[in-house]
């Protein structure tokens, strides 16, 4: 008899019923007990993470104490917004839609981004589309970023992004997450509610969030769960098929950008297993076999996981003080 494989998708199996109950119980205590808030605000992107958080919040607190926000802007997908409405209606929560494009326009988000893009593609105009992709590292070199643009006739062009323009584009687009969070806290303040942050474990561990943007929250109910586990919870919680089958995207750039195209080395199904394996000190050779990739590429992924932890450490850090103020607890 062959021994059971040590590494595979089964390592991420969870008891969904027990986990949903555990999170719901925790949420009641965190919101009412620790934070002394009356309910929760959830920004509903239409993706699986925010949808599962919303469903867990309803389970914990009931529909009347969950307030949904749909916060589209010029570049976000209509399909995402439609899924957000679908989930809000499905759960029966009160929600409102606020187009944040005027706020982003006023603060300079689109202008600052497009200025940087035009350094690389001078013809880039309002009716073009764009996205950023990562390249290089997987082939043994140093990571660099590519800018991909699409003119109105559908023609795609790409070019390597100089670091200055890359940073300006990212800084400008980070306004999107920060304006969303400002709106969320407006409603949290007026209702005396807590704000839910929706990072999954990959995003939380690897620093895939904007500081004081989507990284800001009072509670993060799924930060300990791998994306694969969140999809399993979505199915267990009976969320619509459109959500359970949605392909994760950043929904930040006007061209569709997969998370594995911009940030992670592999699609989430494989990346979850790679992260689990690295956390459990599984040798690269074994992980390579399980994922159907080379041992060399697995070693690159392990090193990339560590590199991302180091470079994004400051995103998790609270403001540094010269010395602690003893009267203020953690």
């Amino acid at each position: 008899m062959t021994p059971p494989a040590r590494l595979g998708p089964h390592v991420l199996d969870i008891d969904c019923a027990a986990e949903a109950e555990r999170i719901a119980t925790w949420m009641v205590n965190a919101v009412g007990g620790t934070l002394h808030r009356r309910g929760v605000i959830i920004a509903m992107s239409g993706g699986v993470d925010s949808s599962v958080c919303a469903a867990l919040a309803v389970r914990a607190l009931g529909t009347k104490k969950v307030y949904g926000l749909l916060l589209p802007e010029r570049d976000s997908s209509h399909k995402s917004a439609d899924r957000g409405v679908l989930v809000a209606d499905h759960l029966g929560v009160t929600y409102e839609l606020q187009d944040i494009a005027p706020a982003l326009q006023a603060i300079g988000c689109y202008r600052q981004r497009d200025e940087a893009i035009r350094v690389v593609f001078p013809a880039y105009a309002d009716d073009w589309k764009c996205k950023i992709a990562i390249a290089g590292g997987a082939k043994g070199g140093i990571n660099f970023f590519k800018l991909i643009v699409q003119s109105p006739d559908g023609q795609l062009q790409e070019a390597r992004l100089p670091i200055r323009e890359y940073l300006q584009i990212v800084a400008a687009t980070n306004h999107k997450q920060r304006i969303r969070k400002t709106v969320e806290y407006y409603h949290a303040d007026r209702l005396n509610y807590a704000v839910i942050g929706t990072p999954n474990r990959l995003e939380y561990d690897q620093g895939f969030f904007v500081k004081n943007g989507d990284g800001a929250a009072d509670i993060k109910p799924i930060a300990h769960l791998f994306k694969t586990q969140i999809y399993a919870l979505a199915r267990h919680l009976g969320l619509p098929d459109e959500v359970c089958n949605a392909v994760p995207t950043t929904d930040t750039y006007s061209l569709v950008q997969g998370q594995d195209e911009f940030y992670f080395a592999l699609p989430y199904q494989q990346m979850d297993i790679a992260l689990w394996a690295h956390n459990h000190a599984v040798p690269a050779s074994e992980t390579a076999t399980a994922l159907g990739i080379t041992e060399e590429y697995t070693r690159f992924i392990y090193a990339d996981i560590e590199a991302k932890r180091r470079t994004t450490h400051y995103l998790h850090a609270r403001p540094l003080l010269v010395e602690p103020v003893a009267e203020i607890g953690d």
Partner: protein
Amino acid sequence: MSVELLEPLAAEMGLGLAAEQVERVYRDIDQKRRSTRYLHLSARLVGEVEEVPA
């Protein structure tokens, strides 16, 4: 701290405050610390993610 204990402290402070007023200020400080504690809290997690330092 009792009003009796605050009497000499209030006089020493030389702010022209009665012991009752100092007591009220102290209570207000403590009350503000309690009611704003959540502003200092980092996001609550269901469980720690070991690989990310708290």
